[in-house]
């Protein structure tokens, strides 16, 4: 096929073209290309067990590269390789393969590959790819004063405006209309619990059927506690001045893959202590942030995974402001740390002051084991049930026998009585317990029951329910360890004074929980510095105290042992990102658990860990269920509050997109909620131009729809979540769709190149031999004819 060149090439051109005229160069380049593709895609094996996922090290993710697959194959070495291959192919073809009938196939193949490469360069150089989540609807609530508030129709969603509060009680994506001309039709219906001044009811709104909006109100009938307002009052809405409508969720931006950004906005504290944004999110693109490798500026600021060296290798990624509306315009945010896979964890750190802490393991004879951490007086950070396992610090003044008994302080100012009584009996367990008179006063009392270490509103409280009599009336008092919380009630437990707390100040009480003994197993630290004992008060056994040391199992009962793994007489609880060990990471999570530490320079430097957000939602009521909304707030030296969120870069859509409907086509047996029953997902999408022109399009798997150079394709959906594992509220799903969005410049060039090369291959391998055969046969026939004529 190759022939000697008949074109004399001289001078510089000859020098340049000489190496490019070698087929061997092409073979070498293709070999390098093969290696480049292999290590960029699969990585490199690090052990002979190449069938194990852990054996493959993704080289492009190495600390100095930090590249996605897309970036690896859009890097200059790759383009250089492709360019050289094309150049080499062109030179060899032009110089050594004259275009003839026999070589047309090779020419077509090589031309096709070059055209394809050009198409690829256009495609990948201009590629934009991202996605947007679009909800089925956005609820707009307008209260009688004219104020309004919005929230996405998402399970469990709630919001407030004025004196009104709204909470989504249920969403039915397939609500069957019960009346009217459309009876039997199915539609997306949202039921909202409404709490307003003096009224409480539920309102149902139905997408596409505003005329069927109606209220459901308490009926007073225990058989059917809720009834339609229309049935009770003859009209569908009990309050026409309150408007709730289900509007389209119009999205005007989408978010790019693998393009990180920080979003900032200034917030102010609202009347209810909530943070109110003063501005929308202002975006700052991030460049040069690692993706795959942890970078830690100070290992003491994170919880390291076991075996990690804890060597500092900080980054200094400056993120400047790009918008004049930026609340920190002119101030670069510095990213100093990046953690690929971490979660915030609170752990105990030894400290000169603070409560005692212990890490323990309870083991059963058959080998089962449970590990717990306990912190004195801290139920949030203690992993064990406080009634069963706790830790207490005592000093020399504590008598262990009396410290196990709760006390009730009683003060009767009018009679100058001040006493402290041990509580040993409860009327809940001893119904005939007599009232104890307070000598010299008309008062008497008895304790119904006491409870220790209750977690109420995030606080640890202990309380006793005390019956008090002044000789004429008897009432109930909830007596807390914090006396400001004390409340009097009717004896049957009905709050006095319409629920407002009140106290009969003729008698004052305070409850003191036992210093020890509130749990069945209680670790007692002290009074000596390293002294640790355990008080065992298991049901059916006599309470007793045993010494215990770290690492030595202590039998509690019937082979159940308690082992102290570690303990400290005083700790402080610190919350830091905990780096998840590499083998415990779920690779499907990509960078969803990544965190960066952002430093805001200033007179008082502020820093915060920013988790990754898939979308920068404007507020919790704007967030799509299943996606994180966790902005981080910092207070600047000038007193301003700034919220920050790390997410992805945004890009304008050519038209606002909203979701008119979402349909699931199913296999036989209907849609069960399981993906295996799904045949296809169909999003009925509405594009709306700025001039109000609307166009409907149905996007489904394998059927994307184009719009002004972008293709919209079905990417994700909202599956049913009967256990509420994503948003804490059970959901029938189908509340939103995720549309993938991308451009595809150069695709037709690529296709033309591919088709040309395929034709060339067929020609070279099958047509050419036939032509050669025919010409050979003709030559042989001619030769035979000549030979015959000679004969």
């Amino acid at each position, binding site marked *: *096929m190759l022939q000697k060149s008949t074109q004399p090439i001289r001078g510089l051109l000859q020098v340049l073209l000489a190496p490019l005229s070698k*087929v*061997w160069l092409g*073979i070498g380049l*293709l070999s390098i*290309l*093969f290696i480049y*593709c*292999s290590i960029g*895609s*699969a990585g490199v094996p690090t052990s002979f067990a190449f*069938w*194990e*996922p*852990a054996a493959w090290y993704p080289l492009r993710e190495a600390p100095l590269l930090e590249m996605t*697959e*897309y970036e*690896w194959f859009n890097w200059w070495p790759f383009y250089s390789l492709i360019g050289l291959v094309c150049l080499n192919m062109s030179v060899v073809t032009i110089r050594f393969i004259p275009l003839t009938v026999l070589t047309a196939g090779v020419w077509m193949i090589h031309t096709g590959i070059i055209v394809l490469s050009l198409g*690829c360069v256009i495609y990948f150089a201009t590629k934009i*790819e991202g996605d947007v989540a679009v909800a089925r609807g956005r609820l707009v609530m307008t209260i009688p004063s004219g104020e309004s508030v919005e929230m996405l129709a998402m399970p469990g969603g709630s919001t407030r405006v004025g004196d009104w509060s709204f909470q989504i009680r249920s969403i039915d994506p397939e609500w069957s209309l019960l009346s009217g001309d459309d009876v039997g039709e199915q539609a997306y219906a949202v039921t909202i619990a409404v709490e307003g001044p003096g009224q409480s009811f539920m309102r149902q709104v139905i997408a596409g059927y505003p005329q069927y909006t109606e209220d459901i109100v308490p009926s007073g009938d225990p058989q059917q506690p809720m009834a339609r307002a229309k049935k009770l009052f003859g009209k569908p809405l009990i309050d026409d001045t309150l408007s709730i409508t289900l509007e389209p969720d119009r999205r005007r931006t989408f978010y790019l893959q693998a393009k990180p950004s920080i979003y900032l906005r200034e917030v102010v504290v609202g009347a209810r202590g909530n943070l109110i944004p003063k501005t929308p999110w202002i975006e700052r693109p991030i460049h040069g942030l690692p993706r795959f490798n942890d970078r830690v500026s100070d290992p003491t600021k994170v919880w390291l995974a076991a075996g990690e060296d804890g060597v500092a290798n900080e980054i200094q990624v400056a993120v400047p402001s790009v918008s004049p509306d930026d609340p920190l315009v002119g101030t670069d945010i510095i990213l100093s740390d990046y953690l690929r896979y971490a979660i915030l964890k609170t752990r105990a750190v030894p400290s000169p002051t603070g409560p005692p802490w212990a890490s323990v393991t309870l083991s*059963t*004879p*058959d*080998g*089962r084991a449970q590990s717990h951490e306990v912190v004195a007086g801290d139920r949030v950070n203690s992993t064990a049930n406080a009634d069963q396992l706790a830790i207490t610090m005592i000093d020399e003044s504590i008598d262990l026998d009396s410290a196990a008994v709760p006390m009730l302080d009683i003060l009767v100012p009018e009679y100058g009585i001040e006493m402290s009584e041990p509580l040993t009996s409860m009327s809940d367990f001893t119904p005939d317990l007599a009232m104890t008179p307070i000598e010299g006063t008309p008062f008497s009392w008895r304790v119904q029951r006491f409870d220790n270490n209750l977690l109420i509103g995030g606080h640890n409280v202990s309380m006793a329910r005390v019956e008090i009599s002044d000789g004429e009336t008897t009432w109930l008092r909830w007596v807390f360890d914090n006396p400001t919380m004390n409340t009097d009630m009717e004896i049957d437990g009905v709050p006095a004074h319409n629920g407002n707390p009140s106290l009969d100040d003729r008698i004052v009480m305070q409850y003191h929980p036992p210093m020890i003994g509130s749990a069945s197993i209680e670790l007692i630290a002290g009074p000596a510095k390293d002294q640790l004992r355990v008080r065992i008060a298991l049901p059916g056994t006599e309470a007793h105290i045993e010494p215990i040391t770290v690492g030595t199992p202590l039998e509690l009962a019937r082979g159940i042992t308690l082992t102290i793994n570690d303990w400290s007489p005083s700790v402080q609880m610190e919350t830091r990102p905990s780096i998840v*060990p590499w*083998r*415990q*990471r779920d690779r499907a999570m990509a960078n969803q658990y990544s965190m960066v530490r952002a430093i805001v320079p200033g007179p008082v430097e502020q820093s915060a860990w920013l988790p990754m957000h898939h979308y920068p939602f404007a507020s919790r009521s704007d967030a799509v269920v299943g996606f994180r909304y966790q902005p981080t707030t910092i207070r600047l030296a000038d007193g301003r509050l700034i919220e920050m969120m790390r997410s992805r870069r945004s890009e304008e859509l050519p038209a606002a997109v909203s979701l008119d409907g979402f349909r699931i086509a*199913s*296999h*036989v*047996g*209907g849609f069960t909620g*399981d993906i*295996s029953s*799904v*045949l*296809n*997902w169909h999003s009925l999408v509405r594009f709306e131009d700025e001039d109000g022109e609307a166009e409907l399009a149905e996007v489904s*798997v*394998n059927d*994307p729809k184009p719009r002004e150079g972008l*293709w919209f*394709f079905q990417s994700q959906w909202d599956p049913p979540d009967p256990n509420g594992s994503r948003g804490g509220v059970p959901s029938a799903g189908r509340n939103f769709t995720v549309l993938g969005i*991308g451009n*595809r410049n150069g695709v037709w060039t*690529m296709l033309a190149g591919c088709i040309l090369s*395929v034709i060339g*291959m*067929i020609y070279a*391998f099958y047509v*050419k*031999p*036939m032509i*050669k*055969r025919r010409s*050979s046969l003709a030559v*042989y026939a001619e*030769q035979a004819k000549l030979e015959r004529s000679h004969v």
Partner: protein
Amino acid sequence: MRWLIALLLFTMVTAIAHAAPAVVTTQADTFYEAIDLSPLDEVTVWQDGRLKSFESYARDTMNWISGPRRPGGLTPRVAMLDIMLRPQVWVDQDLYFVKNKLVRVEIARALRESVSRPIDASDEHLDAFIESGLAPRAFLMDGSVQALLARIRTDVMRFAKPVRAIESALMVARPEVIRSGLLLIAPTGELAETKPWIQIDDPSVRLTHEDTATAWSGLQNTWLAGDVAGVNASAAALAAALRGINPDVYPSAERLRAESMYFQWGGFTWGWIIYVFAIALLLMWVVYRWRGAYWGGLVLFLMAFSLHTSSIVMRTYISGRWPNTNMFEAVTTSAFYGGFFAIIMELIVRRTRMRGLFFLGSAICSMVALMAANLDPVHLNPAIGNKMPVLHDIWLHIHTNVIIFSYVLIFLAAITALLFLIRRVSQALFGTVDIGSDFARAGGAGFLMAPRPDGTTALTADRTTFGQVLDGATMVLVELSFILLWAGLVMGAIWADHSWGRPWGWDPKETFALNTFLIFVLLIHTRMKVRDKGLWTALLALIGATVMIFNWIIINFTISGLHSYA
């Protein structure tokens, strides 16, 4: 000599064939042997959006519990019903399959060191567990084993999946779970196709379908009583009653019977065993040119291919689609394409020295494919399911079939290349090598067509060496696979463009398909430049096949990507 070799080969393949089925069998009870559940072949169970045969459902269920093993030597449907109805009988039985051998070893170690070691966890029993993977419930529920599993499951990459599989096995074997899956009652009324199927234990069944409920109760009661005649009669009554509830939505009895038969007869199993014999004979033909071996090999090949084809056709009939949507189907269908191609090629080259080579290559390829499908059902799951939504597209049929066809051609090329290399090595060791002429001068198709002045072609000429024949065959396969692989990649890109919104995403599977193509580009260009064309062609054909297999196995099962379902 020929007979001696034939005898040796026969003995070898017979031994392989006997050793192959990995089935743990024990003596079955008379009751189990006597009952006749064949009427249930016409019963369907709704599962995951598909109406599958009772047999198919039972196999899936038992696959969760016992993997490829057959506890007690029972058929899956007998075992499943017995576990559901008489769970107490199975308490101490080796029922639960642990696939991962490292996990088995660790479980055995934990049990040996456990202070509460179960009574029957003898060293012999634990050794047997390590070997077979089957354990009784007590082993897996032991506290030390549970602690072990809780610990190792945090190693997500290595052990999360095996631990999940153990938990699934323990859960699926619970009678109430098996019962909850028996969605046997067809919906009735309007739009019944879209209504959910009803569990046979649902209280409403007794009210609405009394005869069905009675037959089901009868089956359970007679089973518990060990009444063979009662079980047989109840099974027949149950099948008839279920089919009568709503015949409009019920699958045809023929289709259900075919599905049951498909899983029972093991066409693929017999297929690979016969392919082994065919390989032995065809190899003798290729090496010794023994005509009897050729005809014997041909007959066996055609027999195996018939079984293979029948299985493919049955699967198509049962599932209502061409089988190319999961790994099992891709592997078996790909091998089928190889057989089909071999027959056509053998017709073309029947009077040449290439005769038998394509049969041999196809037989080896199909044997490997069917053997893998038969012996590794965990990775190549034969269960028939619905297609994923993304696969509902015409390009599935075009792109996937073209790609898997190119893959089988690459495999066939690797076989002729391997024969070439073996010949070359033996020549180097025991004779002389003429590297200047030990290749097909006109490439592949050209080699078949190029005429000579005497009217012959290279393939029929006496002076043509066996090396040239092997190299020519390799090139025939390489050329075709080259075009098909490239065309398949292009078609995949077209599909991806309208499915995922981008024609090419550098997904590992895409990239390694491209890598396979790159190897063949290298082959074609290297062949032009080197002197020992035959050797380099063979080496690169083998490397190309290795990259292709790497793509199919390692990339699919180890390195995840968008194509991980294929």
